[in-house]
């Protein structure tokens, strides 16, 4: 598949995955709800397309896009969201933690800002082991106000770590507008620590891919960390509970305006119509199968709740009521 088609396919897959997941939230199958990635797909897709299979990423509470773009199986991903025993985490993680570690995803972390430090440590380990891996850590504009991320910038820069900081600036941290939450600029925070930083259009998968390749080349060639702020817009709710609660922090007109540049349309318009239609059909079938798989999969047995606490299978309080 050409680059253009592959980028479109990945964006389309995430978009439709999220839409199907929202249906399952509405029908009560996914109880905890989700943070939809709709509108931001170009970022996960562009960065993951620049990575080799052995490279690593960390994801967030709004993580389905990253995990799918890195190559996770949509059926097992959806099964995880539905809390089924066939899910990526066997039902223990759910929407905010669904991750396939076997393909280089170091977890989806729902503590805002926390994953950057983990990514940096993992990249440092790879560097020390003489591997040329790079690590991409995704986070939102809200995360740049967390102390741990700023501390991490310092370490990554001092130690020339092959980590790429990707800030998905979707205009909001829940209801907080970026400009109300961030003094100075987002890129200025990285630059203050000597990390090269740039801002790119996060709506165009090709633009993101170009920026990603440059950052990956820098990291892989020993040039240390870099920072990419991707400007985007969250088309849907912060979290699906907003569908019921409808808080008024942005107007409908604003959402319409913010959603006019759509990564799916931007990339789709670059493909011949029949190729695009063919991809769309393939993805519908794939997701139909994913939904069926999730719904037909069993729920985990409650006795499994105590498994996997320690590597040797030790349970903290075996035999006590």
């Amino acid at each position, binding site marked *: 598949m050409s680059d253009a088609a592959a980028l479109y396919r990945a964006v389309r897959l995430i978009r439709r995955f999220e839409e199907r997941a929202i249906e399952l939230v509405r029908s009560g199958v996914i*109880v*905890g709800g989700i943070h939809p990635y709709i509108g931001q797909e170009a970022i996960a897709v562009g960065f993951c397309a620049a990575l080799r299979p052995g490279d690593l990423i960390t994801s967030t509470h709004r993580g389905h896009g990253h995990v799918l773009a890195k190559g996770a199986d949509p059926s097992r991903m959806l099964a995880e969201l539905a*809390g*089924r025993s066939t*899910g990526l*985490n066997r*039902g*223990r*993680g*759910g929407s*905010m*933690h669904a991750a396939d570690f076997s393909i280089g995803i170091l977890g989806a*972390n*729902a*503590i*805002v*800002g926390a994953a950057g430090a983990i990514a940096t440590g993992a990249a440092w380990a790879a560097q020390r082991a003489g591997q040329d891996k790079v690590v991409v850590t995704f986070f939102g504009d*809200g*995360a740049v*106000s*967390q*102390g*741990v991320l700023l501390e991490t910038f310092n370490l990554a820069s001092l130690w020339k770590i092959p980590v790429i900081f990707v800030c998905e600036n979707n205009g909001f*941290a*829940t*209801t*907080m507008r970026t400009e*109300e*939450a*961030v003094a100075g600029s987002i890129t200025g925070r990285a630059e203050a620590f000597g990390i090269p930083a740039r801002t790119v259009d996060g709506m165009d998968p090709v633009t993101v891919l170009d920026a990603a390749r440059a950052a990956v080349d820098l990291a892989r060639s020993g040039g240390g960390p870099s920072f990419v702020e991707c400007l985007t817009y969250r088309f849907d709710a912060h979290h699906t509970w907003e569908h019921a*609660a409808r*808080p*008024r*922090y942005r107007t409908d007109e604003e959402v319409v305006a913010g959603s006019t540049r759509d990564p799916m349309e931007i990339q789709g318009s670059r493909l011949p119509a029949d190729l695009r239609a063919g991809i769309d059909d393939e993805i519908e079938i794939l997701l139909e199968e994913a939904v069926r798989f999730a719904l037909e999969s069993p*729920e*985990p*047995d*409650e*006795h*499994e*709740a*105590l498994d996997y*606490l320690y590597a040797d299978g030790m*349970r*903290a*309080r075996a035999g006590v*009521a």
Partner: protein
Amino acid sequence: MRTTYREAVREAIREAMRADSRVFLMGEDVGRYGGAFGVSLGLLEEFGPDRIRDTPLSESAFTGAGIGAAIGGMRPIVEIMTVNFSLLALDQIMNNAATLRHMSNGQIGVPLVIRMTTGAGRQLAAQHSHSLEGWYSHIPGLRILAPATVADARGMLAPALADPDPVLIFEHGSLYNTEGELPESIPTCDISSAAIGRTGTDVTVITYGGTMPAVISAADELATLGISAEVVDLRVLRPLNDATIMQSVRKTHRAVVVDEGWRSGSLSAEVSARITEQAFFDLDAPVMRVCTEEVPIPYAKHLEEAALPRPERIVRTARELVGR
């Protein structure tokens, strides 16, 4: 007047804000969003953005700023979305709020209220569901409150704000939609004693906060089996009100502690130890505990339920103690 726990907390905040211009509410999305759990909905409109302050995602900084504002003469209410995120502010709470009065030889105090949601039951998995109030109750210098009823949700804030020292209030996420009756004029509320949630004679079940509904339903079930359970609502997790606990245990001679925290090194261990220290010779059986299984809270419904203290487990444990 019938009201929900959520509305009760909101009314308490509203009343405090109207009564004292030094009071303000600060936290993530407390304004336009009305707080992560909708507690402060509508307050921004009434009090404006200076007093209902949205903050960036910086738990450590805004909690520290709350401490500073309290020292500076304000009466802040800091809201932290959930207890899991409060760990980012733990340093400020433990190393500063809790220590300043003592460390300064009483030169300064920290009249700060921190509210946060705690607990599981909503399928939000292991980074949003823990019950860590027991950890906080380990810390000298703090007062720890856990309102289980609508009356306490309504009543505890005013005395907490009047307290010259830091007070943490833990609101269990599963309680926000619970309903209860409130009188037209709100009686003054004490934040030092435990309460008897239900009187009984055969076994004392000691709990607090979010496990109260499970304990009440267990007590109902026990009643059908002819076992009369007395329920102690701790209300205040630090300092613990030993007298109420011991009075009940001396009457029933048996105790079960029910806690959504983990059992090892826990609040339930503390309560159990105190009963052993103070009422050992009144006991007819060992003190038992029903706690959350010692795992991070899992996501899937079955797994989450399996991890939590359920009424069946409470009933089974109480029956073992009573021998019926």
